[in-house]
């Protein structure tokens, strides 16, 4: 177990290195000069050169990358070009909100997606199945901005059940999580349905029924844990997909996460922030995958970590 963890972490670090390397070079290949933005409209060529030197942007890329890495090892993610603040601080201030939102979304995906998938599998081929299939496609196809505003309008403005955006209490978390989770729950329900259909055909389900177990017990205790395994592996992947969605969801709900930070940084080519956000989300993805892998043996004792 320990050996496994160490091995996995080593691989993760290598992956993160790869991510940082590729991102770094991609970002500096972008056709936008950060120094111009810093210097402003009234700057002279001399000022621009000065700033370029101060930021070390006149050095060869590899040198810059090496500097970035050495900084990173010491916990320094650099300073934002435009906000003139430590990137680490900026991200640290916003990360918890994003993680909370992702956790909420995963919860929503699991609850909605699994329920829909299980019901569809049990009612296979019926109108319910078809309706759920359409619902899941609506979930996947609906633009998140519109879903978010719609939810906000109905449940916060009209019904007043939830606050109109913001951050702080559990009530604030519900609508953003649902908005972010709706797409994933569409995916999950489809996956859950197909894996559930397979599991329902298994011999041990027949055994469970032969024991005279109640229907819900057969489904919840025997079928569900077996069927959920492929879905769990998805959760890790999900975090990467969320990164696109949180930008929209966070802005609709005024959620103070890294999505908004990233969006602004991308618009203005604030490279240190983009780097930082990329690395942090890569970390989240890697950790998410690791967690998913660590959880599976808890559900399926046959799986050994190797």
């Amino acid at each position, binding site marked *: 177990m320990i050996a496994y963890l160490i*091995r996995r972490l080593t691989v993760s670090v290598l992956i993160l290195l790869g991510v940082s390397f590729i991102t770094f070079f991609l970002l500096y290949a972008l056709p936008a000069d950060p120094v111009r933005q810093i210097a402003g409209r009234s700057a002279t060529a001399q000022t621009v050169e000065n700033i370029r030197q101060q930021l070390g942007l006149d050095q060869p890329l590899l040198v810059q990358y090496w500097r970035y890495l050495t900084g990173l090892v010491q916990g320094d993610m650099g300073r934002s070009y435009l906000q003139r603040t430590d990137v680490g601080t900026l991200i640290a201030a916003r990360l918890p909100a994003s993680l909370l939102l992702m956790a909420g979304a995963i919860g929503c995906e699991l609850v909605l997606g699994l329920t829909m998938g299980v019901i569809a599998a049990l009612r296979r081929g019926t109108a319910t199945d078809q309706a759920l299939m359409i619902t899941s496609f609506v979930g996947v196809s609906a633009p998140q901005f519109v879903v978010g505003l719609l939810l906000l309008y109905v449940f916060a403005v009209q019904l007043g059940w939830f606050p109109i955006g913001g951050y702080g209490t559990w009530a604030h978390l519900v609508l953003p999580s649902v908005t972010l989770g709706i797409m994933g729950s569409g995916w999950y329900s489809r996956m859950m349905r197909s894996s559930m259909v397979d599991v329902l055909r298994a011999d041990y389900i027949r055994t469970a029924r032969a*024991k005279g177990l109640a229907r819900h017990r057969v489904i919840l205790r025997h079928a569900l844990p077996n069927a959920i395994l492929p879905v769990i592996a998805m959760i890790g992947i999900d975090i990467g997909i969320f990164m696109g969605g949180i930008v929209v969801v966070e802005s609709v709900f005024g959620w103070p996460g890294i999505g908004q930070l990233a969006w602004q940084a991308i618009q203005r080519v604030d490279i240190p922030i983009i780097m930082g956000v990329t690395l942090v989300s890569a970390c989240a993805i890697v950790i998410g995958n690791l967690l998913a892998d660590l959880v599976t043996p808890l*559900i399926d004792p046959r799986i050994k970590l190797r």
Partner: protein
Amino acid sequence: MNAAVTKLSGAEKAPETAPPVLSVEGLEISVRTGEGPRVLVRDLSFDLARGETLAIAGESGSGKSLTSLAIMGLLPPPAVHVSGGTIRLGKTDLLGLPERWMRGLRGARIAMIFQEPMTSLNPVLTIGRQLIEAIEAHEDLSRRDARDRAVEALRAVRMSQPEARLKQYPHELSGGMRQRVMIAMAIALRPDVLIADEPTTALDVTVQREVLELLRDLQRDLGTAVILITHDMGVVAEMADRVVVMQSGRMVEQGPVREIFAAPREPYTRALLAAVPRMGRGEGAAASGIAETVARVEELRVRFDIRGGLLNRPTHAVHAVAGVSFEIRAGETFSLVGESGCGKSTIAKALTGLVPFEGLLEVAGRRLESGQRPDTAFRRGVQMIFQDPMASLDPRMRVGDLVAEPLVIHDIGTPSERRAQAEALFERVGLERDQLDRYPHEFSGGQRQRICIARALALRPRLIIADESVSALDVSVQARVLDLLKALKTEFGIAYLFISHDMAVVENVSDRVAVMRLGQIVEMGTRAQLFGDPRHPYTRQLIAAVPVPDPTRVPPPFTRPQGDVPSPVKRRGMEPRIEALTDVGEGHMVAGSG
């Protein structure tokens, strides 16, 4: 509810007058297909008396499993369903019962043990959970009492350390243990009727023996009525009071076991009994020593690494095959017997290039040395029939295509020739031409194995490896297949490497036999030498475990050797000790002192 039932303890036979506990009348089971309904079982009637053991025997695909599922109300929905007749448990009509009521009866008054102990237990729940929930589903007991009942049930099936077992998962148990858990689960609530569908087919001879003894003891103690489904007439003879013989969805004969064995009325029953392999009836001399050698195995070793540690390096190794040598000559059937896990299949895999090996292999003049992979020509020379027919057929292909596939791979013939060949092969293995366009899941287990055999025959190889290939077949088909194999052997000079745990079959088909244990051969010789004069204690034990298809015979008491089974797993670098074989006369080789 069970407590109210008076148990007839120790009764070998139920009184004729007592009302039947289960009665099936005019049962008809159909399947809906794209082309309309098809009847699978028709007009089946039988009664089951309290405390009685009724065996349902018959060829594969005759509808035995469907019947038992129908009684349980567990026919696979929605295609397969009961289309006529009645099933009564006591006075209740099971077919008319709503699912909710039926659920109350399942497990409590009728319980079932399935054929596949490996897949019939939920892999993600502990044994304890699965046992306890079965009890809790029917009786209002505290968790603690339910647990005690579970332990008691495990003890009843003679599991060692029952308390500790509760915490284990199915994959941590051997096949025999799993089957015992299944039985424990079935008897925990003392059901009136216990249906056992091929409870021992998947098990070793020695384990089979144990399980059978167990069932008999339990039945004697609890007075449960048992429906035992099997195609092994030896098992029928040892276990049953009465027999129902089925053939292609119909009952052909029914009667007390002694009568049926002594004087079968119907020709099918007679044929069935005639086909039963019996020990000591093997015939034919060993192929003479001058025949050419078709296959040679020299100092074969196969190791599977077990990885671990920080760098995931191999730390241990399973010495699945540890220095095995033998030769197979043209027209000879060479058998490997031995308990599960002794390395039989691994030898077969090495010969077919599925695992890397050390040593030397030679088939039809083509040599293969350590580390080499077989080429196409080598592969044409040796074909294999696998243990599990369902698993070894691609479920998404039509069986006709599957049988013709080797021809396609080796680029033989035109499509129509291949089709013709497939049809011919199909008939040869006892299937019909018009089944060529079906899919594997539409066949019974036995039928599927015939498909596998047909596929293996397609290339007319010099050596066919039959790994437990007839274990799943009913006796009559088994006999036909064995006859077929025999015919092919003489026709084309094909040799067989026959792998089985069924000593009776081995005794019937083999020219020479090798007994394996822990990856090594402990005894090897001609059939006569081995069965007539077994020298190694292990060989003797195997022979003693075989059920004898003679209901008049009282089986000798069976004792399983105690103590730890030595393990083929060794630390990396450690080699297993290889016991040299000594010739005790005329090529009869025995390990150690004998």
